[in-house]
């Protein structure tokens, strides 16, 4: 069973080399076993990343990474809506995550 901390650390580590896809958020939170419990864990991982100011969601814009507007609750609602739309198998579609400065520091410290 994946723990929230483990998934957060994995995603922060991934963020050191590139933006992180929604696909990876699902994978590191579920390891392929998708049920109500693991879906809940994925959402708690996202909440932790957002509220601890470790990662920011956004889209790959033409020129740069475009942060999503709105509050953290808005981000969570929008992320959940995308996961439902993609049947929890986004396969590269949907949001991306970028590390904040704080997230980078945390990732460097734990990697």
């Amino acid at each position: 069973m994946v723990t929230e901390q483990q998934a957060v650390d994995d995603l922060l580590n991934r963020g050191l080399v590139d933006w992180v896809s929604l696909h990876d958020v699902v994978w590191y939170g579920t390891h392929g076993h998708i049920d109500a419990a693991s879906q809940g864990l994925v959402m708690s991982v996202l909440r932790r990343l957002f509220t601890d100011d470790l990662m920011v969601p956004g889209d790959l814009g033409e020129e740069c990474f475009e942060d999503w507007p709105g509050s953290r609750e808005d981000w969570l609602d929008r992320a959940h809506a995308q996961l439902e739309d993609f049947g929890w198998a986004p396969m590269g579609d949907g949001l991306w995550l970028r590390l904040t400065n704080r997230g980078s520091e945390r990732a460097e410290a734990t990697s």
Partner: protein
Amino acid sequence: MARSARWLSVLLAVVVPLLMGTQPAAATAGSSLAAMVGSPSGAREPLTGPVSETSQRAPLAPARLTVLEPLAGALAPRQTSASRDYDCIPATVTGSSAQVPTRCSAVTAPRCQVTAVEGANSGLPRSGVAANTVPEVVGPARSTELVLDSFRGLGPAKQKTVRTVGSVDEMRSTFEAWSVGAERLPARGAKVPDVYRLPDGGVIQWRTGSGTGGPTIDIFPTSGAARTVHLADGVPW
């Protein structure tokens, strides 16, 4: 006496046509005698082994190349014209210096349908001038596992889910080899113009930028973390 005459007539029936440049009756009935088959140049060349009636009736038709491409998620053959000048490079490649088959004659096409991405190495030139000379790759779509085999043969990176290549050209050639025959999906914005679904549901995509700069290939298996191909450190883009 009558027996000797019968043997003589049989002998004449075989030998005389040979001396006159025609074929004896026994040969045209499909025996295993050396056959004579028309060639594109018009010369007659011997083939060994049993000969079919077809090969004796008419010269071989010009060779055609069958390229397999998926249509609506399925593999379907598509006929394209090709000359007989193209040779098939052995299908299974194991070394980094191996080449990618380009086009194959009709005779050898089946061997070419498993091509560059088999085994631990992609078979694609890793870097340098050769990377710019990688020809068009044809064949059926790859499975995600085959793509991941090829991925593991690329250059190392700091994380095991990341591999590197030495130039943008090499990266593009790699992407095109992986995506050949796959189902094209709509672009995911200007940053992700090329997206392909492999027959088993895996997705590969070309990203024009990444968090650390430069174009990137993403591989999304149906089960597993995403894999990423980046440019090696210090490579300009």
